[in-house]
């Protein structure tokens, strides 16, 4: 679930895993003291002051998560009773390289439409949808061997798989840190939180990930408290221009998607330069399965975010993508999309007629 913004109500602050959102007593005391703090630059502070936006507190939220691609919560440790999409994952554990679909992971119930057609490389199967869906993830596309060959060293099945246990963990870390920041903002009596910054980094070592969200809680002087506290990555002049353009920030939005490539034989061969140890060769050309994964990760994360927008707009989207070659043709693409959900609150013709100037430098 993508966080959709607003101040969590006391009931909603209790997440399904039992976390009770509480501002620590020391923090509550500090937030209610007379001195305020702010993370704004002097420029942004001055611009906000001109608009009647006054900082009340630098608010923060943290969430430290255990982090493993292959550990608890991932399908790599479990053989699911219903098989389905776990077949590729199971075969990827080492014992069933290129095993027959349906035998390695407990049985694929659905036929694989399309696939790498025998004698050619170019088709692709699109499955996903009804089968293989689980809390761990789902198959997005599947690929079959064109060689009509079965062997333990030959991958005659491959798939691109959404690693939902990864993206769900990321979302949980972000949403929890965000909600804790918003609780502090509520305790400070804020109307909104501006200049939000979020970082996701390793803490101590690669098995621990720290989600840190912070921003400056503000009030609009003379205005009533809004129904929900708004938040935005913007501040100062940029925030002024957004409002001038007729938009109002609703909430910071961020989401993540992770796609794993379980390479079919042709993908494995092409990733190694077109030759395979088993003697099978493949023509050079597009590595369709990897191209698909690159597109799928970006589309998935965009869809995750869009599902929370309603009729609003994601402004200033920043799409960060990383990918890594896992070995033997396997591949992983991770995408994070963040931005400010804004909504049009008034009709405005925001820009005076352009005046062209030529700067002689």
């Amino acid at each position, binding site marked *: 679930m993508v966080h959709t913004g607003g101040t969590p109500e006391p009931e909603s602050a209790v997440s399904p895993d039992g976390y009770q959102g509480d501002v620590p007593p020391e923090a509550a005391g500090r937030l209610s003291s007379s001195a305020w703090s702010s993370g704004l630059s002097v420029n942004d502070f001055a611009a906000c002051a001109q608009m009647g936006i006054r900082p009340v507190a630098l608010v923060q939220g943290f969430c430290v998560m255990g982090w493993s691609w292959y550990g608890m919560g991932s399908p790599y440790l479990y053989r699911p009773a219903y098989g389905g999409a776990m077949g590729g994952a199971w075969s990827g554990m080492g014992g069933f390289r290129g095993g027959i679909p349906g035998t390695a992971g407990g049985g694929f119930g659905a036929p694989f439409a399309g696939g790498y057609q025998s004698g050619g490389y170019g088709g692709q199967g699109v499955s996903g949808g009804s089968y293989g869906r689980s809390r761990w993830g789902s198959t997005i596309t599947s690929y079959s061997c064109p060689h009509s060959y079965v062997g333990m060293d030959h991958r005659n099945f491959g798939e691109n798989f959404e690693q939902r246990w990864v993206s769900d963990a990321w979302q949980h870390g972000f949403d929890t840190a965000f909600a804790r920041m918003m609780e502090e903002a509520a305790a400070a009596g804020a109307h909104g939180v501006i200049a939000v910054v979020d970082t996701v980094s390793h803490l101590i070592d690669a098995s621990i990930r720290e989600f840190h969200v912070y921003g400056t809680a503000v009030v609009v002087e003379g205005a009533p408290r809004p129904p929900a506290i708004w938040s935005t990555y913007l501040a100062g002049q940029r925030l002024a221009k957004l409002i001038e353009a007729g938009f109002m920030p609703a909430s910071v939005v961020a989401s993540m998607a992770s796609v794993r490539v379980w390479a079919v034989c042709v993908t494995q061969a092409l990733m190694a330069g077109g030759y395979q140890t088993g003697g099978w060769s493949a023509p050079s050309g597009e590595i369709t399965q990897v191209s698909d994964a690159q597109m799928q990760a970006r589309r998935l994360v965009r869809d995750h975010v869009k599902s929370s927008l309603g009729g609003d707009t994601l402004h200033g989207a920043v799409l960060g993508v990383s990918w890594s070659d896992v070995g033997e043709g396997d591949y992983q693409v991770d995408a994070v999309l963040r931005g400010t959900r804004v909504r049009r609150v008034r009709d405005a013709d925001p820009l005076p007629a352009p005046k062209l100037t*030529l700067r002689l430098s």
Partner: protein
Amino acid sequence: MTSAADGDATAGNLRDTLLTLAANGYASRSKSQKGSTSDLSIDEALVLHSIGWEPVELVCGAAAFSIPAGIWTWTQGEVVAASAAYAGAMGRAAAALQAECRAVGGHGVVGVRLDVTVERHLVNAVMVGSAVAPGGGARPPALPFLSDLSGRDFTLLRLGGWDPVGLAFGASFVNAPRRSVSVAMRQSSQNVELTNYTEALYAARESAMERMQSMASQLAGHGVVGVRVSEGSVHFARHVLRFAAWGTVVKASGRPDELGPVSVVVPLDDAALAFDVASLRGR
């Protein structure tokens, strides 16, 4: 492009605006039921809005191409398979970007960021940008334009009577000619020109530029603006030099130039002492 808005008046209006909006509970005026995404800055969105264009959706195109084994051995001339893989990956990524733009009803994509990585057996090309469309619900063209120029540059081009047509790119990987033993020994003890590397660089440059300009012609463009170039060695094949060039193809629209007279501004705070070539540099 500057705004003539008065600072104090704007701040005062904004204070009133915020109070009015807050009194209404920041009620939405949006008629759209469909959310959209955009990676444009507020400046770019505003300047596009000033000519009646709006962002539609964040779109992407990606393609991975294989480079066959064995082609990086030191032979002569161009590493044809690598150049072909680069062209193939870029072409497929651009086509995927156009297809996605068309699917969301965009007329074109602005601010396209290219991310191309070349490894021993893989070329990975990714293009990401914001699909844009003019207001009024005009029917999108069958082939949307692509441009790596910003929303601001797109606006300037339009007002100046030019239309972006698409992205043109070219790349070439060339083996440096081998030196004779005597030449290699002579050069190793002197600071002299390594003509074989210069030759390879020129050969790669010429092929890449030719491919980019041919592509511009195929797109029926009049020229390429904002050309970026990137050249260097290949870290896993030190005898190969690479050159890549890309830019936005434009053509005259036939519309009159709407930019009007230009005010010349001479800033007196320019500390630069030399021509800044950074604008030409790709990555």
